[in-house]
């Protein structure tokens, strides 16, 4: 039984991990239909923010929960104003430009901090015993944070005025702007929020993974696959795809090792897209957020 609890926890952690790394991307994609190829670099910047501010004596929780989203959110808004807004409606060009941005950020961070790992920080909180097995308390915390974050995004979209206007823009940008909504502003805020969520996720994962200028590449494959398998609905898409793909990944990793887990994840996603080209929420839960 202990084995099953430990395994179950591992799988749930895998799912929470997917939710964390993809939510920021999903917000931007769901709202603006923009795939942000610099997403991995936003995560990386969040990680760097945490590591550097902790090394300068800032409390690690402040660094992770406040500084990382703040810094990356501001960077996101700058990027939107300086680059993305010229390319609305040109999806392919946006992809290319954000890829350029991704290279640019990697280059900048390498120039400033060097290509090697900056001083890492160890995950706070110790381990917890489940029968014969131990699990990191920090991983449990990440699961809780992933749930809270999803609920938070749901609450913002569902209950606030900003959320209402944002959903209206998502459904029909033209109609929303005819009714007096400044869609430009909504896009700017959405991009900033998406970036902030990515920064938060990157910051939270930094103690687990360490930071490197090129670490973004290890996240984006999973994040992209999760978001496009999920489809257009931000929350329902991300969570359903995370549960499906994270579950497959977890089980296959347990059976055959981590390499096959990733391959199974990808294979499942490609077959899924063959069956449902517009993602899970293109077919099920269409009215959801």
């Amino acid at each position, binding site marked *: 039984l202990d084995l099953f609890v430990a395994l179950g926890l591992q799988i749930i952690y895998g799912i929470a991990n997917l939710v964390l790394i993809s939510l920021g991307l999903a917000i931007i994609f769901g709202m603006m239909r923009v795939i942000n190829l610099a997403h991995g670099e936003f995560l990386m910047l969040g990680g760097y923010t945490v590591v550097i501010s902790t090394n300068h004596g800032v409390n690690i929780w402040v660094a992770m929960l406040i500084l990382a989203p703040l810094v990356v959110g501001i960077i996101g808004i700058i990027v939107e104003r300086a680059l993305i807004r010229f390319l609305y409606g040109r999806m*392919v060009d946006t992809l290319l430009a954000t890829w350029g941005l991704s290279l640019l950020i990697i280059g900048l961070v390498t120039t400033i901090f060097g290509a090697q790992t900056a001083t890492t920080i160890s995950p706070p909180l110790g381990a917890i015993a489940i029968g014969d097995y131990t699990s990191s308390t920090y991983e449990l915390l990440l699961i809780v944070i992933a749930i809270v974050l999803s609920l938070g995004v749901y609450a913002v979209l569902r209950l606030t005025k900003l959320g209402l206007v944002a959903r209206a823009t998502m459904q029909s940008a033209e109609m929303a702007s005819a009714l007096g909504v400044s869609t430009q502003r909504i896009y700017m805020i959405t991009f900033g929020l998406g970036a902030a969520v990515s920064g938060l996720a990157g910051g939270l994962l930094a103690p687990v993974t360490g930071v490197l200028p090129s670490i973004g590449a290890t996240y984006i494959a999973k994040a*992209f696959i999760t978001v*496009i398998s999920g489809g257009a609905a931000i929350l329902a898409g991300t969570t359903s795809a995370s549960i499906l793909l994270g579950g497959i990944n977890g089980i296959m990793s347990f059976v055959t090792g981590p390499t096959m887990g990733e391959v199974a994840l990808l294979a499942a996603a490609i077959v899924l897209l063959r069956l449902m080209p517009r993602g899970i929420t293109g077919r099920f839960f269409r009215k959801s957020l």
Partner: protein
Amino acid sequence: VTWTRENRWRALVVLIGAAFTLFAPDVLQLFTIINLTTAIALAILALSLGLIWGYGGILCFGQTAFFGIGAYAYTIAAINFGGSTWAVLVAVLAAAAFAALIGYFIFYGRVSDVYMAVITLTVTLILYSLIRRTSGPEYKIGSALLGGFNGVTSPPLNVPWNPAAMLFPEHVFYVGMVALILGYIFCAWLVQTHFGRVSVAIRENELRAELLGYDIRFYKLALFTIGGALAGIGGIIFCNGVGRVTPDMFNLYNSALAIIWVIVGGRGTLVGPVLGSFALFYLTSWLGTQSTVNNNLVLGIILIVFVLVVPKGILPTVVRWWDQGRSRRAMQRRELKLRRRRVAKAAEATHEG
């Protein structure tokens, strides 16, 4: 072959390429030639992406996947067969088959442009991390160890059906140039066939092409597979130029480079991507020799600037300026002639009057 203006230019390109192949080894040092072989391999990769993206509108972010698979398949097959004759065939088929498999899911699933880009990118990333992890002795295909991060040493090409007659680096240069030139001629021919023109029609407007009765899924898949095979040929030349295959052939940096070559050189041309790859190859290796400016930084700026300012790429933009300049000069000449005639007529009139 009809000798349109475009085809005359293409013939000129082929002639220049052939002349370069003949004379370069006499003029350049062996080190430069070996370096050049790598650039030629990358140019074939650029050509393959230029074909499918520039003419078919298929934005593949993971063209390096086929490039890498070609190289790996060649190396593994050559080690197992003890010669390169059949290994080359196996490599091209493996790259094409992988492209066909991925393409089937993408095109027959009718996923959109953006999803297509993301899927191809992800496939490449997963291949990269997969092959990086194959370092143990248990990962081997036949008698070839995959070697994980360090990769595998590639056996050199040999004269067909004569495994003892291995080619020297300068010979590989010839093979590479011949492959590049033949690949170029093939692509130039392909885009003028019925198949090529339907592909261009699909690029211009998918819905219209479909309503005209063409099965766009099939055309895209076929073009994508051809592109994959061509990239695989590039991979074979690459691992012969470098002497080994490593997982780095699949990495994100190389995928980004391929896109940048095509966008800098120009979509909808074949020479553009090839020239773009040569230019950026020498730019990045020059950047590698100094340490103040980071490679990624420069490439990122190039990509952003081209997307925002020169989205068509250098070659089409230059051609357009040239054409505009020419038509303006032609117009000026015509106007001048007209004015002269008018003046002459007026003079005649006053003379008579």
